[in-house]
């Protein structure tokens, strides 16, 4: 019997998700025995042309990581969608935009201006910017892909069958997702593979130390406090997003006394991760006076970065509303 064909592709991502696949360690050999990898730009020398030559629907599953930021990404993910039976958004960036998605707080022009002219490390007296087309010689024109107006999560560009969460997905989660896919017993479309259906607190080793009602008098940033690793981090004033984040990661950050930043994303039924996180976190601030509440919550210096760290492009408002006319 012919082995199932798998494609892997990266869009706007840091490469950590590619690393996560390699982190399967010796299990990667099992994967290679079970499937044929037909496209994997990071590790193998296949070209887009090779994918184009495959019949439509002939790839069993495409694992796509990273958010869609360039016209090239858009082109390749649409191509992979056409060629694949299943498309899997692998990792937080692909599922909800991830850290690169925070760029949606700025317009395309603001980003280009900062990166090529204003950043303190840039010296660019001629105000050069990359051009989409550059003529290098007679009859040779080089082309670059264009930057889209915003970063888009994969499911705003093509239909996505399954999601694998994490920044990056842990080897355990990746393996469970692969097992589910290979088992042939597929969950309903749109499901999250490899992770838990409950919040991180259910898996958290510090759950027993969490009082029935968590209330905090102060908010601290991780560098401001020497956290007690044996006590619920929320009760120590750290912005741990465990209560609203999907479990399944094995509470790795918590075990290192770092609060959850939410990379496993929202639970089912949540329509806006940041909105839900605000809802829960603000409600445990133990003051009734508006000024006191403002003062304590004011210690969260960057609420967009804290509550929408991995999900800004998938939020209800997608990013900053850029008031072009004003």
């Amino acid at each position, binding site marked *: 019997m012919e082995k199932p064909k798998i494609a892997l592709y990266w869009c706007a991502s840091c490469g950590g998700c590619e690393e996560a696949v390699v982190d399967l360690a010796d299990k990667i050999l099992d994967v290679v025995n079970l499937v044929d990898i037909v496209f994997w730009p990071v590790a193998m020398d296949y070209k887009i042309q090779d994918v184009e030559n495959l019949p439509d629907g002939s790839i069993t599953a495409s694992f796509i990581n990273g958010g869609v930021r360039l016209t090239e990404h858009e082109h390749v993910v649409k191509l992979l969608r056409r060629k694949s039976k299943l498309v899997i958004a692998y990792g937080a960036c692909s599922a909800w935009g991830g850290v690169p998605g925070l760029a949606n707080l700025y317009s395309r022009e603001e980003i280009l201006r900062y990166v090529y002219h204003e950043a303190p490390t840039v010296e660019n007296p001629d105000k050069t910017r990359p051009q989409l087309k550059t003529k290098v010689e007679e009859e040779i024109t080089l082309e670059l892909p264009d930057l889209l107006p915003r970063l888009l999560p994969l499911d705003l560009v093509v239909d996505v069958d399954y999601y694998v969460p994490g920044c990056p997905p842990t080897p355990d989660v990746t393996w469970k997702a692969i097992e589910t896919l290979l088992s042939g017993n597929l969950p309903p479309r749109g499901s999250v593979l490899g992770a838990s259906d409950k919040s991180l607190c259910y898996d958290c080793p510090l759950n027993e130390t969490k009082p029935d009602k968590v209330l905090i008098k102060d908010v601290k940033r991780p560098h401001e406090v020497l956290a007690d690793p044996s006590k619920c981090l929320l009760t120590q004033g750290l912005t741990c997003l465990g209560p609203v984040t999907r479990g399944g990661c094995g509470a790795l950050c918590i075990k290192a006394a770092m609060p959850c930043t939410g990379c496993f994303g929202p639970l089912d039924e949540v*329509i806006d991760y940041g909105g839900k996180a605000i809802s829960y976190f603000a409600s445990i601030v133990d003051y009734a006076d508006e000024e006191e509440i403002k003062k304590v919550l004011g210690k969260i210096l960057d609420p967009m970065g804290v509550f929408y760290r991995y999900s800004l492009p998938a939020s209800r408002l997608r990013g900053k509303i850029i008031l072009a006319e004003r």
Partner: protein
Amino acid sequence: MSQDLEPRIVVFACNWCSYAALDLAGVSRMKYPPNFLVIKVMCSGRVDPQFILEAFRRGADGVLVAGCHPGDCHYIEGNIKALRRMTLLRRVLEGFGIEKERFRLEWISASEAEKFVRVANEMYQEIKSLGPLKLQETV
């Protein structure tokens, strides 16, 4: 052109105080702009910030959350929870670039029909002059 469009403003009003105040405004024949879509909730503490973000997503130009005065909450401290949430939400809305006039949290007791009418008129005027909320097209 856009200035001619009438704003749509969503109100989340708590069952015990604010919704009764809106009712009172109605039976007292007080006049306020017809731009308010009222959603009754059991308590202002029931209003998840997601509801407000969703309202803006679906075309609201403004959102008003109205609850009982502190100390008067039917559920003792639901309105205080709302106060905490909305305080943080305000900063997030600012991060999204939504003008602060488009979102208000007000305490309106069952007898304060006049206060509701005043708030409604103010919000209408302010949002009308801002014009419609334009979300960036994404796809």
